[in-house]
């Protein structure tokens, strides 16, 4: 029984890893080998010079688009954590006449997935003149009702004794939040932050709509453009894809603990 379990898991693991292997394999072979008459698991030769070819190809703005993706992901992660944690804390802990109304104002948006409203959001963002602009890429994604809601739930369970001690020391809401609550919630911030980063790096529909200028492409838009047009060498495309997932694989290996906690606690990714 136990052996059967391991057998099943091993077969599944191979199936899960093959696509990763294919990205790297196809990125490091010659163009001819990708469309060769018969397929072999191991390539006949590995061409490391493909890296030089990819990074020197002026038609493929890989470095530029990776930098764009990185800037967008970092800004969205930090911005979302900041705005949503403040809102979550305010809703959870500050007694105020309209806090109930504001809570409903926030949770009502939970029912509407952002992807469905990309057309209306585009209308507003284009009116603001933010098409092909970093602001248009980053800012609309900062206001996640779901993240604010999660922070509120978390802060509701935050030990009150800690806050009261701070209150006695003369700290207001603002001081308490920054000096006591945030430092004691690092794990939670890390968990939600990793999720936000991964989501932002991999998002596609919104950047596709908003990043019209080649200068503003994220890496996903760049890959998709060449994939649908098939206008560059296929091995370059695969190598670019391999390069594009490297930062996230590193995040996965280094921060898996937070990531798993984030998934388990949020139960949502997009």
């Amino acid at each position, binding site marked *: 029984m136990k052996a059967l379990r391991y057998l099943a898991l091993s077969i599944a693991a191979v199936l899960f890893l093959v696509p990763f292997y294919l990205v790297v394999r196809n990125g490091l072979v010659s163009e001819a080998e990708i*469309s060769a008459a018969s397929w072999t698991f191991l390539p006949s030769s590995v061409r490391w010079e493909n890296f030089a070819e990819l990074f020197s190809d002026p*038609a493929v703005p890989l470095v530029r688009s990776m*930098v*764009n993706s990185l*800037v967008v992901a*970092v*800004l969205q992660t*930090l*911005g979302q954590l*900041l705005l949503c944690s403040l809102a979550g804390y305010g809703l959870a802990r500050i007694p105020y006449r309209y806090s109930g109304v504001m809570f409903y104002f926030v949770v009502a948006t939970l029912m509407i997935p952002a992807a469905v409203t990309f057309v209306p959001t585009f209308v507003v963002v*284009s009116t603001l*003149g933010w*098409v*092909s*602009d*970093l*602001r248009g*890429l*980053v*800012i609309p994604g900062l206001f996640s009702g779901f993240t604010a809601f999660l922070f509120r739930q978390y802060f509701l369970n935050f030990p009150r004794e800690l806050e009261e001690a701070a209150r006695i020391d003369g700290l207001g809401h603002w001081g308490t939040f920054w000096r006591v609550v945030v430092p004691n919630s690092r794990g939670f911030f890390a968990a939600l932050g990793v999720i936000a980063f991964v989501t932002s790096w991999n998002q596609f529909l919104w950047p596709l*709509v908003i*990043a*019209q*200028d*080649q*200068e*503003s492409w994220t890496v996903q838009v760049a890959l*998709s*453009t*060449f994939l*649908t*047009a*098939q*206008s*560059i060498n296929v091995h370059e495309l695969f190598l670019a894809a391999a390069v594009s997932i490297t930062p996230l694989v590193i995040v996965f290996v280094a921060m898996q603990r937070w990531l798993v906690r984030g998934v388990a606690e949020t139960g949502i990714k997009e």
Partner: protein
Amino acid sequence: MISRRGLLSLAGASALLAACGSNTGRGGNGAALQQWYHAYGEPGVQQAVERYAKAFTKTPVDVQWNPGDYDSKLATSLLSDGGPDVFESTPQISSVRAGQLVPLDDLFGDARTDFSASILETHTVEGKIYGIPQAVDMQMLFYRKSMLDRAGVQPPSTVDELLDAARRLSTGGVKGLFAGNDGGGGVLGGPALWSAGLDYVRDRQVGFDDPLAAKAIGKLRDLYTSGSLLLGAVKDWAEPDAFTQGLVAMQWTGLWAVPAVRKALGDDFGVLPFPSLGAGGRASVPVGAFGAMVNAKSKRIDEAKEFVRWLWVERTDYQEDFNLSYGFHIPPRKSISDKASKLTSGAAADAVKFVRDNAKASNPPDWTSVMRTAFNDAVSRVVRDGAPADAELRSAAGVVRDELKRLYG
């Protein structure tokens, strides 16, 4: 433009941004006009248009090359303030009505009569010209002479002969015809209508509301099911690779591919228009010309107009280079096309003759994207899924009729 794109007022992020530079600023040159092209497949075109832009001394011009779904991209950016100042396209009546394009009549000067009248026609909406034609493109049928000879097949002059030829030329690893990975529904829909003497739109009325249309499109279905079409090629119909590699005996592609085909096959090929369905029908070739257009939302319309005037009216040497040095196109100006020696012999000369005798506008201004989508979807469902042609075309005709009513009342 620098201040809007380069500077951000996002609290707490400015330090990071400074470190990364003005991230989505346009190449640091805020004073440059933005010019968009779709991605031409032939090598050298991108470098050529960048060279032209650089040679314009009055205003810096940044060229953006757009691989991928150019029509969608252009449509989206014309809605916003961030679109290009100058771009290539064909005018649609709906964009003109929405005020997205700048009329360019005043740029032609004396050269107006030098431009082919029928091509200018396709850039004219309600009496005004919205694009300066850059290059005339046409599509036609390429066939491999030696393969036809070996099979004892004559170059087809009717649709039935085409089907028959495709069938007889499919032997061994070779297929008879390649007309796109979608089985021809995308590029042959128009030619099929024309083969029956019909059209997209005629005198502001639906041009294909006729039982013959179902018969013509039905022929495409027959072709698809005959097993003589190549499907799933690596490069699609616009590139001649399947033809030059000997995967097919005939391919539907364009004049632009002639240099590449000649290089690969020498004289072993001929060209034909899409044949006629029979009595009352006619042979046809789709003809269209991208024109340089100016975005009405541009903040520098005058400079943009001056640039396109300079590039496509004044610099006839560039027009000649653009049309003839890479893929083949027909120069829209008679003074250039008359002396274009590359177009006076062989397949290119035939193509010029087809354009004179068999031309049909592939993208007339009143054939809007809504109509085109409805028609192409209908054709695709008939061809690929075997949906009944009369019902599909009737519902597409309904869409076209509504759209025409919206446009003309």
